[in-house]
């Protein structure tokens, strides 16, 4: 059983398709493992045992009928900001604590159609706002590699679930780094596709112009399989892009010959400390050893990324989250009139970070401040996108850290700004809409830490460069095998 839950999605799907193991068997094994590790990890807000069994039986039925399902029987974790018909969908918030989604998000539906089995709805920072999962109002998720540390965020539940073997693939959403950073913290591939590649229909919006769904997986191949199943135009999302998707899982590379990889001049890793500086330089050299030519590129406006992001994302969230008013669904705390009901409901329903961002966003959009904040931020966003365009004239991919540190201990980042800094390296790509991923690139023992923790290398490609991006990440992953250096404590315990 231990073995099955450690298998890759690609392996599971191949076994199930070949009839050597049933989807139902995989599901039972996974659910049993979930039972045993959930008390310490806490990846899921809702475990969907019955629904998982129903889906598994359906998959077995389809396999018997000869369907070639690319994700046959693959157990998946769905971040709890994505709708799945008939399941509780909370966004990690009290305001949606008991809300049951009446429809299914396109990305989720496509994975299920490809044969995936939904194991549970995974914890996340409230409305995907955070970098540690600590902003969830409904549960604590621990890093499977050190239970005293956070799994990262906001897709921390999905990341922890995949790292702990509670799912083979996790669905996350990335607005400023919410897939890549927990990917790096949990020794996973965390992949954010080009904005518009995966439909947002059914993803509960944080910042609409930045949100993008993507996979968390234990291998590049698994991430590619999930991406291939989800990507592509959806008529239900006006921002989804109607452009053919090149399959990625079947065109993974073994080397990096002929590729120019840009190292960002402004992202000097010395500031990350001696150990991380050494690890990232080693990673860059590995890229070179695999045949890539390293070139220096410049992103002069990237330093404005954080400030830009913290105007645009809150502005959009202040409007996106207005609908949680107690009128039609979710929490309602009564008042003497409708205005008081709004106030009571939102005061009780939203956590501190969500309120902070609603306030920042409301302010940034207010008459008299709009030009100074929102409009300027949009201009900065254009400059950042242009920086990348210029960089990609000189290179095929950009490489840089995925996060500025490994997973930290709970409550270590108590002031919001230090938490915001976690996304320093991931935000510029989000603002530019570019595809980017984090891939494990080494281990470091954090200050005061007892065990080694993983760190991630971020690779970024031009718009729609998913095939190249995943291909290169696969070559690096296969050559370095960093992810295999340690097992999560949850498997060590079981073993």
């Amino acid at each position, binding site marked *: 059983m231990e073995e099955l839950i450690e298998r890759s999605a690609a392996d599971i799907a191949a076994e199930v398709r070949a009839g050597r193991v049933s989807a139902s068997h995989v599901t039972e094994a996974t659910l049993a493992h979930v039972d045993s590790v959930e008390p310490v990890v806490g990846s899921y807000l809702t475990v969907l045992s019955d629904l998982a069994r129903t889906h598994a039986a359906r998959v077995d039925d389809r396999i018997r009928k000869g369907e070639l399902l690319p994700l046959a029987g693959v157990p998946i974790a769905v971040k709890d900001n994505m709708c799945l018909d008939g399941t509780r969908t909370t966004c990690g918030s009290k305001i*949606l604590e008991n809300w049951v*989604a009446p429809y299914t998000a396109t990305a989720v539906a496509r994975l299920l159609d490809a044969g995936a089995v939904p194991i549970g709805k995974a914890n996340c920072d409230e409305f995907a706002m955070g970098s540690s999962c600590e902003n969830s109002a409904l549960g604590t998720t621990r890093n499977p590699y050190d239970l005293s540390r956070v799994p990262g965020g906001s897709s921390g539940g999905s990341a922890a679930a995949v790292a702990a073997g509670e799912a083979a693939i996790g669905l996350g959403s990335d607005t400023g780094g919410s897939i890549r950073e927990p990917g790096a913290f949990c020794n996973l591939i965390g992949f954010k596709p080009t904005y518009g590649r995966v439909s947002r229909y*059914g993803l509960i919006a944080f910042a609409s112009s930045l949100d993008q769904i993507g996979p968390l997986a234990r291998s590049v191949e698994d991430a590619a399989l999930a991406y291939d199943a989800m990507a592509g135009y959806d008529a239900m999302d006006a921002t989804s892009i109607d452009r053919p998707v090149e399959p990625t899982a079947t065109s993974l590379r073994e080397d990096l010959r002929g590729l120019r990889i840009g190292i960002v001049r402004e992202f000097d890793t010395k500031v990350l400390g001696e150990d991380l500086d050494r690890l990232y330089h080693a990673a860059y050299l590995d890229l070179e050893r695999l045949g890539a030519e390293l070139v220096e590129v410049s992103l002069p406006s990237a330093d404005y990324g954080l400030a830009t992001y913290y105007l645009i994302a809150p502005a959009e969230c202040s409007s996106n989250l207005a*609908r949680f*008013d107690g009128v039609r*669904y979710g929490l309602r705390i009564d008042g003497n009139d409708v205005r008081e009901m709004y106030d009571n409901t939102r005061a009780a329903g939203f956590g501190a970070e969500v309120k902070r961002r609603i306030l920042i966003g409301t302010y940034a*959009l207010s008459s008299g401040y*709009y030009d100074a904040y929102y409009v300027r931020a949009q201009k900065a966003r254009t400059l950042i996108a242009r920086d990348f365009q210029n960089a990609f004239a000189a290179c095929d991919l950009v490489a840089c850290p995925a996060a500025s540190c490994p997973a930290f201990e709970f409550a270590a980042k108590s002031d919001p700004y230090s938490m915001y800094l976690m996304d320093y390296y991931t935000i510029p790509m989000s603002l530019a809409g570019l595809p980017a991923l984090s891939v494990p690139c080494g281990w470091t023992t954090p200050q005061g830490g007892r065990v080694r923790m993983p760190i991630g290398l971020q690779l970024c490609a031009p718009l729609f460069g998913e095939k190249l991006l995943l291909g290169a990440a696969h070559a690096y992953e296969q050559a370095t095998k960093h992810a295999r250096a340690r097992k999560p404590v949850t498997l060590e315990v079981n073993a």
Partner: protein
Amino acid sequence: MSVQYEAVIGIECHVELRTVTKMFCGCPNEFGGEPNTKICPICLGMPGALPVPNAIAVEHIVTTGLAFGAEIPGFSKFDRKNYFYPDMPKDYQISQYDMPLAVGGSVKYWMEDGTMKECRLTRIHLEEDTGKSTHAGSGDGRIAGSSYSLLDFNRAGVPLMECVSEPELHDPQEAIAYLESLRRTLLALGVSDVKMEEGSLRCDANVSVRPAGSTELGTKTEIKNMNSFRSVERAIVSEVDRQIALLSSGERIVQETRGWDEINGVTHSMRSKEEAHDYRYFPDPDLVPLEVAAGNVSRLKAALPVLPWQRFERYTHTYALGGKQATQLIDNLALANYFEAVVARSGNPQQASNFVLGDLSRLANETGVPVSDSKVTVEDLAELIDLVERKRVNSKIAKELLTRMWDGAGSPAEIVEREGLAQTSDRAAIEPFVDEVLAAHAEIVAEYRAGKTNLAGFLVGQVMKASRGKADPAMVNELVRDKLGS
């Protein structure tokens, strides 16, 4: 010394567009129905649901803009208008702020006396309608004192056009004539049902007054809650009077939104400028900018129908019809088209209009069959007009023929032929009738000769009767006077 004031009025209309589905989802766009039966996650603003714009609604705005001569920018976008309201599912309305689909243009309208006027438009934009609130527990349906409200989202997400005029109307009659012309045009374009009673046309008026002759605008108030053209007229009259009274007594006008109270016939303050919302407009990140292709604009322009004001000008100038007749025809599109076809064949607009608006409309009312669907074909009516023009039948016979034609008796020439109804101007044929009548009414003839010359009419009538209406009345008149004079 009393100052003369003039009113300055601008009209803002909200028009629900006629489309099969709503603005951003696939729900049916239909009036009424059981509450909350025409809804889905999108128009309910459920978490995670996304809007996808209705291309037909966009075309309707472009068509409307073109009809009013507005500029259609190649680039437009949707913005969010943020404010909390229970019947607005997302607590923001998808609307257009600084880049509307149509800019400028004007509405040509005409007054009862036929004078053609023009009011410029500021802009026309596209947005989504809200749901409806029903306040319960207060007895009178008002929010004050109500204990709870019921929400119906059937209307939420219905495509809504906002059409804003410049402040260029100067009295309630102009405002009504403007609205009438706008309504007629939207009907002719087929973009809306424009039914005020069903709420598919709603309007607010911006009203200010200023000393006559002044070019500066006074402080305006915005009047809401007007449910018919009649209440628009009454509300403007009442508000203009209120403002003049205030200014005359040395007081100032406060810029505010005022509601029209239909029952008491007054406006009352709803909220002041200071209480106005900061809507925090920003581009809707769920929607990509709208690029209106020049090719589409020219296609829609080529497909524009003849517009009501264009018909009005033609009817009153080229056809020399009266303003009232012209308006009556224009207000019934099928009738106007029928009328024009008859004019094209007969070349006699006045006679065609008389028949169409007179006897034919009466028959249509009596039978419930529209003139354009009746058995009286365009060809038959043109033939009848020709018979009258050539004096083959007189007006009395023509009237009779029309009734027979309505019942399907055939073409007028056939009926005349078959029943020998042709008018005669043959002196020899009419003379015996004249002699007969004069002989039968010797006393009247004597009175006439004694000076009561107005009795000639009676005698002419008797001759017409004796000829069963077929005699040419002019010839009869001439003969009667000849014989009496002799």
